């Protein structure tokens, strides 16, 4: 029963592992290449995720709700937008590294619009990425794409608040998690 539970919880990992097993039997060279390709991402993940989880938990424990609401909440206005862009732009790691932080910020009273801005900025307009882009595609290319992307992110953020409400965001498993670890 326990194994079934683990498989159910990790459907994707189970499916991908199965694909690898089949591939190792059918085309071992392709399977080997896939593992080699994945290694780069796994190393990147190991460098960033532990620190993301630690800092998320520390912020969760120490930063009061009011501070988050003031900085990133519904009433934070332009300041909230600027903060969100700054947080996303000066971040490290791939987009999934932003998930735990954004989830925590949402729980602590950040608005959906600002969370969308953080997620999108985290993904596309990170400072080291911009430097790389300017190097290979020119400053003008980078600059125009940056401006258009910022505009698109702001529009997306506002459209999202029309379609998605806070009640659409699951909090259930988070509560279970608190129970499991006896937090609060």
């Amino acid at each position: 029963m326990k194994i079934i539970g683990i498989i159910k919880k990790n459907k994707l990992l189970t499916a991908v592992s199965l694909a690898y097993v089949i591939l190792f039997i059918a085309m071992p060279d392709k399977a080997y290449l896939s593992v080699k390709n994945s290694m780069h991402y796994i190393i990147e993940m190991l460098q960033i995720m532990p620190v993301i989880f630690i800092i998320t938990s520390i912020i969760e424990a120490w930063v009061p709700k009011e501070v988050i609401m003031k900085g990133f909440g519904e009433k934070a206005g332009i300041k909230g937008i600027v903060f969100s862009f700054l947080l996303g732009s000066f971040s490290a790691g791939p987009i999934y590294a932003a998930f735990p932080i954004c989830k925590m910020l949402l729980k602590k009273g950040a608005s959906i619009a600002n969370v969308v801005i953080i997620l999108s900025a985290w993904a596309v307009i990170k400072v080291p990425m911009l430097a790389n882009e300017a190097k290979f595609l020119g400053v003008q290319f980078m600059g125009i794409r940056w401006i258009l992307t910022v505009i698109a992110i702001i529009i997306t953020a506002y459209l999202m608040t029309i379609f998605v409400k806070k009640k659409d965001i699951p909090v259930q498993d988070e509560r279970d998690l608190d129970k499991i670890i006896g937090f609060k």
Partner: protein
Amino acid sequence: MDIFTVSLWGITGAAFIASIVKDKQKTFNSMKMAKGMMKNMVGQIIGILLLIGLILTFIPPEVIKSTLGESNTFISTIVSALAGSITLIPAFVAFPLVGSLVDAGASIIPAVAFLTTLTMVGLVTFPLEKREFGLKFATIRNIFSFVFAVIIALVMGVIM
């Protein structure tokens, strides 16, 4: 590790020490929470990363390159945007690749569409996003990001 990752470790280390000095029990609890979060996500993340490895084996950068250089701009823009949504190749590979194409005279519209969806739309990270933020949030954010990536690409094609 890039400078941003290193500084994040530095900041986190300092915050962690400050937290211990202020309240040992609270720090201990929050570390338990970090561990719980990690347990909750790590299976999914490793699944995603192994999937990316598979995708890159079957859709290598050379295939993407030929798609981006396709002569029919409309088709290549849509296909490039889709390719960018599926793959998750690192920026230090993507920018030189796209740069060499643009230098060779390829249209920048598919190139921009690819660069934008590459990072902003995540089909492989979708299951994780869905679990953290719900189906509605993940679906709508990814759809908007895709549409805007194409719009940004078209506008850049007109401007540049």
